[in-house]
């Protein structure tokens, strides 16, 4: 029972991650509001992070932390710590980029009085 469900999860985790990512990108591509675009990018980042962590997951693995008493039962399976470390970095970087993006949005609003991206195109051709 459990195993069958976990088999389903195999696809569901990746599927969710990719779906969230694509939804976010859709928001960034289809919505006109600059804030919506930033929100979309941020959502797609979340999906991407989930995807990365999911890659490192091992069935039956534990968190890669050697708490006291853990070392006795060595060779217990641990999940891959590397994607976690990478995601840690990616989340922080993503936050930095989001902050800069929001600052730009605020400034664009200050100059243009609108957040509609179709109206913010002084630079073209």
């Amino acid at each position, binding site marked *: 029972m459990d195993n069958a469900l976990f088999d389903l999860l195999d696809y569901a985790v990746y599927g969710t991650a990719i779906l969230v990512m694509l939804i976010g990108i859709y928001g960034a591509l289809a919505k006109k509001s600059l804030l919506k675009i930033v929100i979309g*990018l941020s959502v797609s980042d979340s999906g*991407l992070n989930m995807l990365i962590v999911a890659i490192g997951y091992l069935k039956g693995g534990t968190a890669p932390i050697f708490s006291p008493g853990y070392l006795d039962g060595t060779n217990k399976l641990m999940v891959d710590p*590397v994607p976690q470390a990478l995601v840690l*970095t990616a989340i922080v970087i993503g936050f930095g*980029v989001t902050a800069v993006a929001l600052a*730009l949005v605020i400034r*664009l609003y200050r100059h243009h009085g609108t957040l509609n991206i179709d109206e913010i195109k002084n*630079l073209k*051709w």
Partner: protein
Amino acid sequence: MVGTPVLFIAIPLLAAFLIPLLGMIWKELVRIVPGLVLIYLLILAVNLLDHVMVHGPIIEIIAGWAPPIGINLVFSAFSGFLVTIMIFLGLLIWLYSYRFKKNVGYEPAKKYFLLLMMLITGSVGIVLTGDIFNMFVFIEITGISAYGLTAFYTGRDSAEASFKYLMLGSIASTFLLLAIMIIYSQLGTLNMADIANRIHTMNPTYKIISLIFFITALGIEAEIFPLNGWAPDAYSEAPGPVGAAFAGIVVKASVYAIIRYIFTIFDVDGAFNFLIIIGMLTLIIAEMAAIRQEKLKRMLAYSSIGQMGLVLVAFGFGTEEGVYAALFLMLNHAIIKSLLFFSGSYLVYNSKDKLIAEMNGLGKKLPITSFLFALGAFAIIGLPPFAGFWSKLSVLTAAADKNMIFIMSLILFVSLIELVYYLRVVNRLYNSKEKASSIEVKKPTANALITMLVLGGLILLIGFYPDVVTGVLHKASAALMDKSQYIHNVLSINQ
């Protein structure tokens, strides 16, 4: 040896963290310190390059863990050459912008120089690193500095340009992470040499998909054709010297990254032809767009995009001559396009609406600047005896050796377009039928003038005596081509 490659990253970072403190002591220090750092790095780079030419590449490991466990930096003839160019150019940009606008206050100046220094450091990091995720981090460092610098002027267009750049940059990092994770999930390593060593064990479909994602992500930064929407805006709205930094430093780093992936890491042969195709597309469309521009900086931006396309084409030949030609082009592009951006900034500065049409007769008002602009224009077109000629010749030779006559004729046709729009500007500068303009002439500052003269001198030097660089270029291209040597060098380090 005066130091190790890690200092290229560590020293600027240390300085960057120090600058806010130093600024509290003496405000001028925020302008001076980046320059001192860059001077030190230039000395370091030249020394290391000299060493590398004789003794082979320096592989530096970080945190005491030999690759593939730890991160490593590779200072080979190829990467070292690019690093040296970048830092040299960075130094000139610093010198040029030292007093670019006198009325800039302390806070903006601090931020400007900090971001500029980190822009250079990030690009240098991209080139030096031997780890794909570390490259991602450096790309982000470069990216954020670039967004900040693009929006540096408080006008409304600069924020717009910066936002476009940021949007595409975010998409780029999404793709980059996806690609990195595909590689990691298959091979369990992030080290370039280790990946290159084992890439043949990877499922070919995944390999190609991850390569496509890499090319897309890096192509956004490297201004490949359908991905380069941000570039003209960012170039034209950023301060003049920053435009030079984008053209001369940032884009070079991204092109380097693409090349590293295609030449060293992946073993997909079709990628070379793909490079030629996208390079040609970039070249042709950018130059066609450039000819219709009304603003000088935007024109330079498109021209710069086009040049990068040409560089990719040259790399795409996949032969050592091709790499040599591409490196030569990159070198020349760094020098010449910077000169054009530098002198062009003053030309723009002296015309009210930044339009080319307003530059009639500036040749008389700003004789040296205009002369240098004309020199740069002649050089970038590839007229002998200036520097650009040798690189154009080597690109064409490489193309002819691969029997790509059609590509050759396209390149020449595009050069013709390039020639037309550059000469239109030069013609205007020296057209004495000037309009009555009441604007006071803003002469370049002494340091800006020195910078431009140095670049002009280099153009002539390389033009008349190409031997000053060809030796290094040959070594650098040989270093890139020898993939197995790279893998061996990196993986045989034991600590």
